[in-house]
Every structure is written in structure tokens, then in C-alpha cells.
């Protein structure tokens, strides 16, 4: 029942986000010819793999995915308190820990589904347009997206347990995301806090060959583990705050 509740609460957001990601991937592949012709060489390199990479894994779709994965983290008891429904949820015969666990679980499943969409769509649809995009590449990018998406989810999840207003939570998250991004580019902070956008796209990373726009060698397991740990810490903080708070 808790899973059903979490699903019902996040369903519109998830469906809109998944729909937009899927639509751009489908249109990007189907309209590849005219799009490359129109956009010219200034945006799109000559290979099909490069085109897909620029559009999806290093471009628009990746940007939207980072935003959407984070938006899925919003909500929870603090928001329900504002709506006046927190008491109904808290009266359920389950612990707050379990309530949060289910929300996190649902978020992870949804992020997994959205991160797999390009891998499910692009290689299959590419065959229709007589092009080839390697499935193994798409799946590896999906894994990178999944881990980074969960980190964004965790940050916004924590913010929505700290701030009563969702608008405040979103503003804090957007602002701090940019602040960290700029700080990590301008200082040595980047070594400890790798930019999620760079990790997801492989931009300036050793595991992406910029000539072919293909992932080469082993995935950055150490970085992925580091990001997963950061996400786990943020989620643990959110659990702690929710358990202690008087609703």
C-alpha cells in the first residue's frame, strides 16, 4: 500500500519526465538527417555516434534528466504538512523510516526507468533509420546517469525534508547545485566533488574518447562509489531529520 501511495504521489511528475525524455530521444533519432543538416557542423560532429552523444549523453537530454531525477526527490511529510495531510500519513501503522524507505525506493526505481529510456530507445530505433548505436555504450551511459541521478534525487529529497515550502527547497537545490558546479570548476574542490554533469557525459573524463565520443575502458567505479556514498549520506540525513521532526 505504501508503494502504491508513493507511486500515486509521484506518477504525474514521473510520466511527464519520462515522456519528455522519450520524446526527445525518438525525435532525435527519427529526425537525425534533417536535424544534422539544419544544425550544421557547428553543433554536430560528422559521425552518427557523435550526433547521438551530443544530443543525448552530453546535451539536452542529459540536462533534462539531471533536473527530472532531482525533481522526483521533492515531496514527503514536510510537504504533506503544508497540505494538511501529514497526520493521515503518520497515523498509518508503519514507522517513519519505512515511509521514507518506500519513497526512496520508488524514486530509485523511477530514476532507473528514466535512465534506461535512451538505452531502450536509441539502439533499437537507430536500426529503423539504418544507423547503428552500440547497446553496450547506451547501457554504460545509463549506469552513469542512474548513479548521478540518485545523487541529485538524494540532495533534493533532503532539501524537501528541511524546508516547508517546495519552492524554497527547489530554489536552494538549484542555487547550491550551480554554486558547487562553479566552485568545483574554479577550485580544487572538483577532485573531491566531481561534477555530476561531467561524470554522466564523460566530458573531460579519462573514460571517454573525445575523438569518437565513445566510452572506452572500465567505468569509473571509484567515482561512482564516491557519488553513491554521498547520496547515501544525504538520504540518511533526511531519515534522521524526518524521524526527529515534530509534525
Amino acid at each position, binding site marked *: 500500500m505504501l508503494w502504491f501511495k508513493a507511486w500515486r504521489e509521484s506518477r*504525474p*511528475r514521473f510520466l*511527464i*519526465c519520462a515522456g*519528455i525524455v522519450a520524446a*526527445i530521444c525518438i525525435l532525435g533519432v527519427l529526425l537525425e538527417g534533417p*536535424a544534422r543538416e*539544419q*544544425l550544421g557542423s557547428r*553543433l554536430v560532429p560528422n559521425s552518427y555516434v557523435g550526433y547521438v552523444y551530443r544530443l543525448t549523453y552530453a546535451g*539536452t537530454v542529459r*540536462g*533534462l534528466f539531471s*533536473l*527530472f531525477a532531482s*525533481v522526483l526527490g*521533492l515531496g514527503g511529510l514536510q*510537504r504533506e504538512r*503544508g*497540505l*494538511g495531510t501529514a497526520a493521515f500519513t503518520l497515523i498509518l501503522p508503519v514507522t517513519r523510516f519505512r515511509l521514507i524507505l518506500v519513497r526512496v525506493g520508488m524514486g530509485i526505481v523511477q530514476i532507473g526507468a528514466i535512465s534506461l529510456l535512451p538505452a531502450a530507445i536509441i539502439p533499437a530505433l537507430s536500426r529503423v533509420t539504418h544507423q547503428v548505436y552500440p547497446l553496450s555504450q547506451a547501457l554504460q551511459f545509463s549506469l552513469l546517469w542512474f548513479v548521478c541521478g540518485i545523487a541529485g534525487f538524494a540532495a533534493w529529497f533532503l532539501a524537501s525534508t528541511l524546508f516547508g*515550502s*517546495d*519552492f*524554497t527547497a*527547489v*530554489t*536552494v537545490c*538549484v*542555487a*547550491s547545485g*550551480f*554554486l558547487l*558546479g*562553479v*566552485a568545483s*570548476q*574554479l*577550485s580544487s574542490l572538483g577532485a573531491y566533488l566531481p561534477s555530476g554533469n561531467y561524470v554522466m557525459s564523460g566530458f573531460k573524463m579519462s573514460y571517454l574518447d573525445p575523438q569518437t565520443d565513445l566510452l572506452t575502458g572500465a567505468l569509473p567505479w571509484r567515482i561512482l562509489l564516491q557519488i553513491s556514498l554521498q547520496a547515501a549520506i544525504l538520504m540518511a540525513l533526511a531519515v534522521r531529520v524526518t524521524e526527529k521532526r515534530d509534525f
Partner: protein
Amino acid sequence: MTLCDLALCQKAWKESRVRFAIMVLALAWICAAIVLLQRIASARSDESMSYAQFIWKAVYRGAVRDLFTILAMLLGLGGLLQEQAKGTAGFTLALPVSRKRMVAARAVVGLAEVAFLSFIPAILLPLLSPLVNESYPLGAALTFGVLWTAGGSILFAATFLLSAVLAGEYTPWIVCTASLVAYMLLVSLWPLSLLPSLNFLQVMNGVGMPWFREAKYALVGPAPILPIAVMGLAAAFFIWAAGAVTESRDFS
């Protein structure tokens, strides 16, 4: 302006002031960091850049502009439809003022906040540049401020309209972001790509515009009145549409 309008503006201000304060701090922090850490960033860059080029790439075409566009959209969120979900719409609607005036008060406060955010780089860049033995022309910074106000108004007004149409708290923002992406793709395709002025984000940073010299990364000539006026009209239309939708909606 009557006392009633002032009270409505105060209500709108109180509803948005926390997010607005965070936005001001964030934009100010990023602008300050970019100026003060400019030497480190330039040293790390592959290409050698002049100070004006660095500021333009980092602020007017880079992270600061991206942050500003998202923040301008966030300021447009809220309104009676969102209040309905919280059960407070009845109290607001019971006030002895028309719905149009309520919408107008929210729009005025929001647009003022957008304008304030737009001028943060214009104030900080010329002010902080001497600290790193550089200078940034105040005139150019102010013109960019006006362009950002006009561009930010469109984004604010679009989310404002979507907030009057879509009930979800985040749905208007998600839809507005997706629409912005679709718009960007559309205006980059032929034949629309032949008219760079149609891309208001490009108007905001000056790329391909007659008033921008890409060689010097500087604005030249008088402020581009026509694009600013067109962007203002587009924003006014969105706000008018939000008023019309709010007036005809049943909030019971």
C-alpha cells in the same frame, strides 16, 4: 495604486521573499566567485582569454545566465491554483478585490524581483573587477541587465501562465523547462534560424546581434529597444492570459 493593491503586493512579496533572498545570495555569490577566481579559471582554460571575454563566457553566456533563467522560472510559480491544493484559496478569494488585481499584484512583485536579479551582475561586475586589477564597463553591464530583465520577464511570465493552468506544484516548472528546450530547438532550425532575434536567450547574451561585437565581447551602439519591447509585449501577453484563465476558473 490603492492601499488594497499595496496589501496584495505585500502578500505576494511575503510568499516569495524567502526564495527571492536565496536567489539574490546565489547569484551574488557566483558573480563574486567568477570575478575573484578569474585568474585560476583562465589559467586552467585551454584558450587564452581577455577579461571581457572571460566575463562574457562565464556570466552572460555561461553558468550565471543558465542559473538566472531557472530562477526567473521559479519566481513565476505559485498562485491561486497552488493555494487551492493547500486549502487557502478560499481565504484569498474572500478578499474584496477582483482576481485580475490579485494576478496583477503577483505579476508586479515577480517582475520587480526578476529585474532586481537581472541587475545583480551589472552591479557586482564593475564593482568587484578592480579588486583583481581589471575593469568592466558599467554601461555594457547595465545594458545586459536590461536585456536580462526583458528575457527573464518572458520566462517568469510563461511559468506564471502555466501555474494558472496546471495544478501541480512542480508541473508548471517542468513543462516550462521542456517548452524552453523545444523552443530552443525550433528556433535553431531553418528558416527560423535565419532570424537570430527570435531566440530571446541569444538576444540576452548578444550572440549574432548587431549590437554585439564578438571580437571584443562588448556591446556597441544604443540599447536594442525593439527586441526589448517585443520581449516585454510577449511577457505582458502571458500575464494577461494568466489573468484571463484565473478569472474564469472555478476554485470551489
